[in-house]
């Protein structure tokens, strides 16, 4: 195996392919970085959340009962805190200085950061159905001045809510499976490094 590798290395070293121009082009990072793209998606999501939170704060006065006010405050808290935590964890992963660490340290840092991101995303997954439940009466009051807790039950769009709720639960379960396997793989790396 080693002989084969050495033979291949000799062939590769003979194939001097890079030009000065090509090397400098690669240092310019004209391409869109994968991680920047992910960060951009998350940042766009955060902007939407903050706009919603501001809208709710401005209209908070319309929530005239203690339960609607509680729902409103919880909604604003979710919308403000979760995107902030997600962006912070992604930023930490992005900010790792690659040249400062050895291979083992880099593996540990990435596995730990990944676990944190996954934990946070899992938390978001659990909170989503709850958020959905509390945002409906808040929006109902803010847009239509209707207290859904007090109004006629037959007027409530139960079918829509039911279908959407089932979708959210199924989506959350699927997401949980994905996150679980990714978390396991990060944990395996950490376990193996400890051996």
């Amino acid at each position: 195996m080693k002989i084969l590798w050495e033979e291949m290395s000799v062939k590769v070293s003979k194939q001097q392919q890079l030009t000065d121009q090509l090397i400098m082009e690669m240092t310019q990072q004209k391409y869109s970085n994968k991680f920047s793209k992910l960060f951009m998606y998350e940042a766009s999501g955060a902007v939407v959340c903050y706009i919603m939170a501001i809208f709710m704060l401005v209209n908070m006065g319309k929530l005239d009962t203690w339960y609607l006010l509680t729902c409103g405050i919880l909604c604003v808290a979710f919308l403000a805190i979760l995107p902030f935590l997600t962006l912070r964890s992604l930023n930490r992963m992005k900010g790792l200085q690659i040249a400062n660490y050895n291979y083992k340290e880099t593996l540990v840092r990435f596995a730990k950061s990944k676990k944190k991101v996954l934990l946070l995303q899992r938390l978001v997954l659990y909170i989503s159905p709850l958020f959905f439940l509390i945002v409906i009466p808040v929006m109902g009051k803010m847009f239509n001045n209707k207290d859904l807790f007090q109004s006629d039950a037959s007027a409530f769009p139960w079918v829509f809510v039911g279908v959407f709720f089932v979708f959210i639960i199924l989506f959350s379960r699927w997401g949980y499976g994905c996150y679980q396997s990714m978390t396991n793989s990060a944990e395996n790396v950490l376990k193996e490094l400890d051996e």
Partner: protein
Amino acid sequence: MQPKQDFIQTIKENEGIIYKITRVYAKDREDQRDLYQEIVYQLWKSFDTFKGQSKISTWMYRVALNTSIAHLNREKRKGQMVSADFEFLDHLNAATGKIQEPELEAVGADWQAQIDLLYAHIQQLNLIEKGLILLFLEGKPYDEIAAITGFSVSNVGTRLSRIKLKLKKNIQN
């Protein structure tokens, strides 16, 4: 101007290292291009911080391997725009068996197949094992592998023995 020329020279002298690392860590050809570019970019970014306390190749292996880990932890990029012309990678892949080119038939189909198989077996290993076996195959002594990876010299030896056994078993199967 001098750092730029030094950097270009360093990359040219060690382009084989980057190529072999990208081939071990990348999932496919497109991914290999992305990783190659990312490694060169990271090397350039940290070139100023290289103080010459270690060999330039040790520093290169460290940055390139760490970049590969970071690369694997990022989401698959969709519709990326690679600015550079990566034809050279195809030539290297052809010369070492990854893709077949008629003019390179002289290299020998058997040899190319063996190289493909060698990479295939290495790619089956986990991240820790990949890094260690790559450095071992590159002929690095245990103390240099320890310096690059952060494992102790004795741990490098133990892990490499286990990896060799694992590879042997995989090849026999």
